[in-house]
């Protein structure tokens, strides 16, 4: 019913006359008649009110949990009001990629600030304007590192499953071998890594913290990669970077990750934002948009899309990547989140996450859910228990609590963030204690 046109019937008639045709149909004369469709088999349109009612009804068919103890790549964090409010300005929402620098300084500067913040978090020299999500950032990093004589990508079976799946898709048909090593006690097995890397290794990819929440000995992994002449790529949770050594401190050549924890809702998996940063040595191989500072002809500071000789619209088949649209708006939200939190706020979020996660781990231990792995962890950890995972999770579900993610019949991956309270955790543990 609504169609968002803004032309009246009278205007339409005037316009047709001006063009010199009698009907709208005549404009489509180039389309062979026999190919034309009679009518789309779709329902009739709705009024906006009906659309709102329809979509609201759909949204209510989803269960929103009061307490969320599940992470595994999507995290429930507090999103400050000022982020939601300022990000909703329609100039940000309805703009295109800032091709025309003279009227897009706001978008360009926002991206420049985002890049600067990603560089602060990761310690790297250069960040791009974002890629699709964390998994794609890792896959793009793999392509960046691949060389004629180095085509083997090495990682451990303790990275996010979706990341591994996307990497495997991107490796296909490019002659890239993906070597997935078994972890030891959930973490990178340094001995196995040393044996696995060699002259054909393009890079070693490590997630910090890894999928099981464990903090890896990233510096050692980086050294092993570099000793073999390979690059070192780290995938990071951006909140954890407020506490943990930055990828640069660990010797990484490329740092990637998913920016969802930085002010983006879980939203059933997307849109999120993949961040990607590297050393200046790798800069000209980096995919995606990059905003740079320059001056205009009067010498005023100005921002532009730069180093475009890397990109598909210039290099076509010789481009390093096909990426064009990225997740700029999500990157804006992430940078707003970082500005709103500031260094102290971000550290407090990270500490709150670790405090609640460690409290939960200790409390679960008392009701028979023991940690599976020995190492230190950030805000996720795996438990093993005699009681089946399904039973535990169902009992929690009945109380409006989304428990951890079932990894196997008796293993659960838990997550805690600053959104929780001691009372939430005590309640969850009490329910689990009663499960037989």
């Amino acid at each position, binding site marked *: 019913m*609504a*169609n*968002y*046109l803004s*032309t009246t019937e009278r205007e339409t008639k005037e316009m*047709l006359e001006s063009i010199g045709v009698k009907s*709208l149909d005549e*404009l*489509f004369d*180039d*389309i062979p008649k026999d190919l034309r469709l009679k009518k789309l088999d*779709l*329902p009739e*349109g709705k009024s906006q009110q009906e*659309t*709102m009612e329809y979509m609201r009804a759909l*949204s*209510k068919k*989803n269960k*929103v949990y009061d307490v969320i103890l599940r992470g595994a*790549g999507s995290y429930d964090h507090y999103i400050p009001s*000022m982020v939601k409010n300022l990000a909703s*300005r329609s100039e940000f929402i309805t*703009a*295109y990629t*800032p091709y025309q620098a*003279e009227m*897009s*300084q*706001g978008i360009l500067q926002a991206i420049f600030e985002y890049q600067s913040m990603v560089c602060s978090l990761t310690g790297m020299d250069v960040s791009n304007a974002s890629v699709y*999500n964390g998994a794609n950032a890792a896959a793009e990093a793999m392509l960046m590192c691949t060389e004629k004589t180095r085509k083997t990508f090495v990682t451990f079976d303790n990275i996010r499953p979706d*990341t591994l799946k996307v990497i495997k898709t991107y490796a*296909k*048909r490019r002659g890239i071998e993906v070597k997935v090593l078994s972890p030891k006690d959930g973490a990178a097995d340094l001995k196995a890594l040393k044996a696995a890397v060699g002259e054909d290794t393009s890079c070693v990819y490590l997630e910090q913290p890894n999928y099981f929440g464990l903090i890896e000995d990233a510096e050692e992994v980086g050294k092993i990669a570099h000793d073999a002449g390979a690059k070192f790529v780290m995938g990071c949770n951006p909140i954890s*970077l407020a506490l943990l*050594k930055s990828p640069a*401190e660990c010797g990484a050549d490329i740092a990637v990750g998913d920016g969802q924890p930085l002010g983006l*809702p*879980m939203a059933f*998996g*997307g*849109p999120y*934002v993949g961040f990607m940063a590297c050393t200046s040595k790798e800069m000209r191989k980096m995919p995606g948009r990059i905003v*740079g500072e320059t001056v*205009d002809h009067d010498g*005023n500071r*100005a921002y*532009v899309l*730069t180093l475009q000789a890397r990109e*598909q619209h210039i290099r*076509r*088949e010789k*481009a390093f990547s*096909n990426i*064009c*649209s990225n997740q*700029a*708006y999500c990157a804006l939200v992430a940078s707003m989140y970082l500005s*709103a939190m500031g260094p102290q706020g971000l*550290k407090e979020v990270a500490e709150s996450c670790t405090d609640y996660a460690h409290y939960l781990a200790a409390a679960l231990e008392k009701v028979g859910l023991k940690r599976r792995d020995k190492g230190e962890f950030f805000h996720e950890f795996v438990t093993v228990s005699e009681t089946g995972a399904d039973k535990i999770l169902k009992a929690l579900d009945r109380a409006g609590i989304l428990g951890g993610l079932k990894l196997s019949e008796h293993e659960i991956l838990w997550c805690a963030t600053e959104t929780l309270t001691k009372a939430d955790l005590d309640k969850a543990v009490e329910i689990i204690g009663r499960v037989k």
Partner: protein
Amino acid sequence: MNLIFEISEQGKRCATIRKPDVQKSSLAKKYLRSGNLELPEVSEVDFARHYTALSRRAFGVDNGFYPLGSCTMKYNPKINEEVAGLEGFTRIHPLQPQSTVQGALEVMETLQRDLAEITGMDAVTLQPNAGAHGEYTGLQLIAAYHTARKDFKRTKVIVPDSAHGTNPASAVMAGFEIINVPSDEEKGVDLKALKAVVGEDTAALMLTNPTTLGLFEKNIKEISKIIHGAGGLLYYDGANLNAVMGIVRPGDMGFDVVHLNLHKTFSTPHGGGGPGSGPVGCKKELAAFLPGPIAEKTARGSYRLVECKKSIGKVASFYGNFGVYVRALAYIVTLGAEGIKSCAQHAVLNANYLKANIEDLYPTEKGRHCMHEFVVSMQELKDKTGVSAMDIAKTMIDRGYHPPTMYFPLIIHEALMFEPTETENKRTLDEVIKALREIYEEAFKDPEYMKAAPHHAQIGRPDEVRAARQPIVKYTKE
């Protein structure tokens, strides 16, 4: 204006969180970062003013005329933003039990079905995050299809010289070699040249229809015959679907695989460069290769996620840009069958109206109606006055309009590509026509002034060479 780092003062706070009410934990020192985290420290009012100032230096569809060709900058309905922000869509975890996200799965399944109908395809995956990502996915499907038939020789993808840059780049990422084919005099694919390059090594032809020149490829049936006759497949780049949706379907034109841009055709906002969404549809012969999971309706009327049997694998995490699907579905539901068709009709009407009233000065393809966009060549004006397509674009900025796409497609010299979209109103188009005619006259009267445009924008022309030669890509504290 200042960077947010430049208004930062140590000790200022903005957002605050609750103090944890459990015991403090501590991590081993060897894991902890040293040194300060260089993030801005601002107060809430500093924050609000900074981002408001940035937004005032951005230009969106809500600000004015935005005829950026090939990008379909149509109006982004507000209701779509509101529904995508409903708690039942934003505060759900992607790994919740499927029984608790039936609404989300219904959104996905309904959208998949609607897009299949609109494109004339049998199956759809929503997973790709953007148009180029969709191209990559579609080409992997094509590779998987040939491989499954043990037809291993098909290593080449044919791309017209007028194609989007993403086409060849995506095909290379998917492991193919590129063969470029020239355009004929009518700016369509040169059939002779096409016949000369197809063969047993042809995996696919990638085509945009209407083409990037805004013209309908009249020989589409013949092209389809040539490609299919050689055993190849036909790939539809959906960037220009807005011109023909509800009127002709890629599936009926002979295409086997198609990607769409929800952020162009289906009104979801561009957000300054994304997030987009690039769903891929295909004919049933290719459906088993789609990246999963995809949503499915069961016989009992509930919804579930399923994997495809011979999937090429995942191309993005979870299920792609779900929030974009919610907006696109709200749009399709509002428009319905008739509304969708009228979008295409009015997109074409607006483009032809603009074209008809400037083409005596801004020359374009003669004697044909354009589709949703048209490309003018300013070569003659440049020869006469020295004023280039770029100078015209920058002069438009001075008048408060976003310029059209410049210097694309590559086969047209001094190209400007106008796409007004169906949501533009006649009054604005009339103003723009008047402005463009005046600008043309100005090129003769004062070319030097135009070559220095814009004069009234946020900045003058930036030094792009300096930006690339001495890259400054982040803030550094002085």
